[in-house]
């Protein structure tokens, strides 16, 4: 009997311990609001460090808010966000690119009421209009822009000099570009094998498509019709742009072997290793180039994409959206406003060189005339981006397949585009 009573007392103590721990946990959770923040730039440097420091500062200013950082891969954001939304465990805040807004919109908060509370147009005017437009779908704003990703042409000035080309006069037209790439494709060590190519062309995936887009628009063509119901990329101007791009590899051989499956990290590495003389990249790439090859400091330039009929540059806004499943949308909104305020935007650009989305942050010398990154500001009026449609994932894959097929010469450019147009029209008509 004594033994039984001793056992009962032990069980009572254990039970009290469990209840008190659980109760304490609930109490702590009730006091602190945890926001989970999914962001593909958190895992990259130096962006990650800048954001983590900003997050720490925010938490100091808001002791009742705990931020839980959730870095993901760039190409996994849409997949992770939509599957977590489907599972009911979506993050509170997510960084999305413009083409991911439409497929994610069902799981996002409509920000219009929040923007109205902040003063409506007065609030919106702080940002470049293009940024807010990019992150809208069906007339609704779903994200506040954090930065622009704008692509321009990077070129190696030393290789230019070695090929008797003036570094201060990069190619401005398609014909000039072709001439330059041919002169820059050489057998440097004279062993009978070409080991330097004029252009690093990304053949694989959406990265390749992004870099092809400005060439398409420069020739007054586009991917889809105005109402986004049919493919128009296979019309004559589109085909001409596609052929020009593909023939850089298949006919003129001014891009390295393996181009059909070369992705962005591969081509960036080729530029840093000085295997290619030119490639298309974003403003943030400058720091990565110098990190991979410090000897390139002062030996590369940035210029606009060569023009056929009109200027064009690939660029779109990237911004922070709030999940409709968030338990703390007000706190999430406070954090989004904080991340995109002028002071943080200026610091963000200074440390990462991502082009800021707030107009006030452009007062820095590097973005003014004569500054290193002024070219990125100059092209803002000519920016083109992917269409914002729910079916973008499938359409993009179809176009990427066509691109690869043409580069591998398993289809002619004409057939590749026509076949792709047929599939895209079927997808859009569903």
């Amino acid at each position, binding site marked *: 009997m004594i033994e039984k009573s001793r056992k009962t007392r032990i069980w009572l103590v254990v039970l009290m311990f469990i209840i008190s721990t659980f109760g304490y946990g609930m109490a702590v959770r009730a006091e602190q609001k945890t926001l989970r923040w999914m962001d593909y730039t958190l895992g990259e440097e130096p962006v990650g460090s800048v954001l983590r420091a900003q997050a720490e500062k925010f938490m100091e200013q808001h002791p009742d808010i705990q931020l839980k950082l959730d870095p993901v891969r760039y190409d996994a954001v849409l997949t992770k966000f*939509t*599957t977590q939304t489907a599972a009911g465990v979506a993050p509170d805040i997510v960084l999305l690119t413009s083409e991911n807004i439409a*497929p994610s919109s069902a799981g996002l908060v409509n920000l219009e009421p929040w923007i109205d509370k902040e003063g409506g147009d007065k609030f919106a005017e702080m940002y470049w209009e293009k940024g807010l437009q990019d992150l809208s779908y069906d007339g609704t704003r779903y994200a506040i822009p954090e930065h622009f990703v704008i692509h321009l042409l990077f070129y190696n000035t030393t290789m230019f000099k070695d090929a008797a080309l003036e570094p201060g006069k990069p190619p401005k037209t398609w014909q000039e570009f072709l001439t330059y790439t041919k002169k820059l494709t050489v057998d440097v060590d004279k062993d009978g*094998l070409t080991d330097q190519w004029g252009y690093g062309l990304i*053949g694989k995936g959406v990265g390749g498509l992004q870099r092809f887009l400005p060439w398409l628009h420069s020739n007054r063509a586009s991917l889809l019709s105005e109402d986004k119901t049919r493919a128009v990329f296979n019309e004559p101007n589109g085909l001409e742009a596609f052929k020009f791009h593909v023939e850089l590899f298949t006919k003129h051989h001014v891009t390295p*072997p393996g181009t059909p499956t070369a992705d962005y990290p591969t081509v960036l590495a080729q530029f840093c290793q000085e295997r290619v003389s030119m490639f298309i990249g974003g403003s943030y790439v400058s720091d990565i180039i110098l990190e991979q090859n410090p000897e390139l400091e002062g030996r590369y330039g940035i210029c606009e994409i060569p023009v056929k009929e009109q200027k064009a540059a690939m660029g779109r806004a990237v911004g922070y959206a709030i999940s409709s499943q968030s338990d703390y949308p007000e706190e999430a909104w406070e954090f989004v406003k904080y991340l995109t305020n002028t002071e943080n935007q200026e610091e963000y650009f200074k440390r990462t060189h991502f082009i800021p989305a707030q107009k006030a942050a452009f007062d820095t010398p590097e973005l003014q005339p004569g500054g290193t990154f002024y070219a990125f500001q100059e092209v803002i009026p000519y920016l083109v981006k992917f269409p914002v449609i*729910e079916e973008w994932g*499938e359409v993009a894959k179809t176009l990427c397949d066509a691109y*690869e097929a043409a580069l*591998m010469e398993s289809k002619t450019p004409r057939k590749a585009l026509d076949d792709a147009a047929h599939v895209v029209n079927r997808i859009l008509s569903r």
Partner: protein
Amino acid sequence: MYSKVLNKLKTKNEYIAYFFIFPTIFVLLIIFIFPMFYNIYLSFRSVMADFSSRFIGLENYKEALRDPLVWLAFKNTFVFTLSATALHLLVGLGIALFLHQSFKGRKTLRMIMLSPWIVSMVVAGSIWRWMYDPFGLMNETLIGLGVIDNYYPWLSTAHLAMPAVIVAYTWKGYPFVMIILLASLQAVPEVEYEAAVVDGASTFQKFRYITLPHIKFMFLIAALLAIITNFKLFTLLRIVTDGGPANATEVLSLHIYRQSFEFIRYGYAAAIAVLMFLVSLGLGIFYTKVFSR
């Protein structure tokens, strides 16, 4: 009375037995049975990104059967499965026969030959992808040896990409077959080989009339397991080629993943998964019927 006690004990033992297997059944229900039936349920529905859905009958199946990419994925899956399985068995058997011999350093060599199996699929895929890079180890070695005279685009040529992936996967997968056959070879009685030597049998005759009959059963088991594994392979293909170039290596597992998580078409992906399951079930039944005799 004795039989009553025995019966009581038997019932008690049965309960204990059920108690021990219940956790496994519970886990199987959660991670296998329920998702399988839920997948079948989804395949008859059109599912939105927020997981709201509506019943659409056989529309997903009709679309899948009309989709040229699905047929291409089926074809690629069969080519990959049959080629990879054949190579696994050939290479695995060859190395097992070699390692069955007595020689110095045999134990160390056995461990070394097992090492591809220890490496994770992601690491193996990354290594091979790097090796196949135009400026990677493969080309640099072959150019150095004078076998080729220019950088070969192994993974960006349609007719080379699939063989390249199969070779990479053979390196990764042969140890599994090797270990099964090696164990089976240990069970072959030495006395039969000695008798064969006395009768003047050649090496090939010994292999054909002694070794093969003894290892036949385990060989068929290894083949079945290889077919099942290879049919649903995902990771290596995702890392090395991701279905490219231009869908030359797009297999069913990749295509289902893409439809679900990149295109957010859960219902359609579920229908393709059901079709894949039916085909693999059919293959399994055919295989067991043919080889069970």
